[in-house]
């Protein structure tokens, strides 16, 4: 069973991820007006979603349900 580990990693890691993401889009910092920053934001969200789905599918495939 790996569900506790999955939850632990993505809750704590996700907290750090989203808090720092929010701070990086504050006043004077990265801006959604910039095409490069918008593209980076899209990659960031796709990346964390991709890793989460990878781990989720992996656990299910490996018989951890």
């Amino acid at each position: 069973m790996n569900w506790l580990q999955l939850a632990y990693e993505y809750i704590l890691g996700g907290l750090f991820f989203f808090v720092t993401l929010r701070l990086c889009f504050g006043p004077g910092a990265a801006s959604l007006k910039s095409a490069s920053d918008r593209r980076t934001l899209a990659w960031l969200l796709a990346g964390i979603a991709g890793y989460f789905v990878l781990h989720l599918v992996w656990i299910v495939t490996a018989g951890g349900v």
Partner: protein
Amino acid sequence: MTFAYGQPVDYVIVVIYFVGILIFGSLFGRRTRTTADFFFSGRRFPWWLVAFSCVATVVGSYSFIKYSAVAFSCGLSSTMAYLNDWFLAPLFLLGWMPIIYFSRVTSIPEYFERRFDRPTRIMGVLFILLYMIGYIGINLYTMGVAMQVVMPRLDAFQWAVVIAVITAVYVTAGGQTAVIMTDLVQGILLLVAGIAVLVLGILYIGDHAGTGLSAPAAFWQGLPPAHRLPYSGFSSPDAFPMSGIFWQDVFGASMFFYFGNQGLIMRFLSVKSVREGRKAFIVVILVMMPLAAIAVSGAGWVGRSMQTFGLIPGNTDPNAIFMAVTAIVAQPGVFGFVLASLTAALMSTVDTLINAVAAIAVNDVWKPFVAPGRSDRHYLGVARVSSVVFTLAGLLLVPVFMQHTSIYVAHGSFTAAISPPLIVVIILGILWKRFSPRAAFATLLGGGLAVGLSIWAPGMIGPLADLHGMGPGEGTVFMRALFGMIVCSAIAVVCTFVWPRRDARSIDGLWIGTLQAAKRLFKGAEPNDERPGAKVRAVLSMTEEGGPAGEGAEPVVGMSRADAGRMLAREGDMIYLADRRWWLGGLVSLHARLRVADVPEGTVRLDRRRAGEAGFKAQRGVVVEKIL
């Protein structure tokens, strides 16, 4: 059971590879005429070159031994440490990298002086030198261990001496350009070799397990169910608990690697633009790291599956599993190829470290404190001598690491002990305007002492280990990073409220809320980066008109109004010209300022002297893009 490691043909391959990489590196070493060449090689490289060189740096020789051992004992969860770096991506991509790039700092200690003050810089130098010299020692030691298994006529330390001498010669002859270019070759080699061992191992199991299943199915069946999962137990086994790895790796090793490793900083300072650096980082974390995880772990997974089918003894030492599996599944010649990849992994990590530690020694110690105002030739000489001296210093640490019970613990405990103070100062420096110079200094000093004290009195970390269900032994090692982060953060916050912050204007461009100001300072004008524009292919036309002279003066490039319009660029914007041959990787390129001129569309006009310095030839096809 003993294994026959290699045939003469294997050692011939290793020697050929080694000589080849020395010659290849030396070709680029001829460009090393100044300290700027030696350390930074210009901001010219594309994302793919930096991405491969980053992976070559991340994967050290110890990685194959360490993660194969973990994979053998714990299964697919050995990938944990390679698949959890994405949590750091926002701060790196949108904060740290743009700040150091646009502020033109050359090292973390220099950032500390500009963001805080000189005492903080000095503390930073001490911490970073300790970390990097230790890291050199670990790589030399683990390579010595690997070579000792293959050729036991010399012990691990003697092998480390041999390798250190060879590496020091190579690095001193090269420079940052040589390091990056050789790392490209070495990064590809170590990924291919590691994955080849896994594929050959799976095929071997298919042929010899006698299950009647396909090779992949037999391999999978040979793994115990718990070994197929992506995570180890939450608080077990003692040597690799998930919660411990999470804190030690994400908030210890990885965070320090991406934010505090001078070698990585120099990599990302060598890209042609922040946009290109972001691409490199994204590719590293989303593509290269998963591939690297497979490459360094594959032999351990194969070994475990082979053990299930009796194809390898039950008492095989996990630390020897990489070499044992490789010796069984690889044909003569292929084994030599894998040995070469081990050498590549070592060289590509250690050459980066030696180059980086020499950069700090020269730029943060020698130049400001010991011998200011000397010629660049003098500093280049010091850089070369420093490369040798710090390699020797790393070598002296090898006997210390030999006292530890396992390579993984040795590496983890070292990094966890010194990284928290630096990480906290960097992160708060980026994110918190109020974070003051005296608080930063106190965090480095007090945090360093507290973490050091916790090594002597591990009971201090006991409550955190207990909270995660880990015992007082290994648990305190794994939780040291978390303990350090808590203590250092507390010191930082308290001291910031006790001591007043610096004038906010003096730190413009050095913290996240002034990133737009950093761009303006970098460009010297209002940035033009909201829309990227198209890349323009053109032909180079050289003139004798001259241009801005003096060190650091950027050349001016004339382009037609139509071409400038396609790039969405304005007069005075920063642009980048590169030879049309992409595979040169930016070796023939330069940054310049745009001048809208009366030139034909599809033509770029550049002063002959500046074009020659960058390696351009007349009528050569170039690609031009707007940077800022």
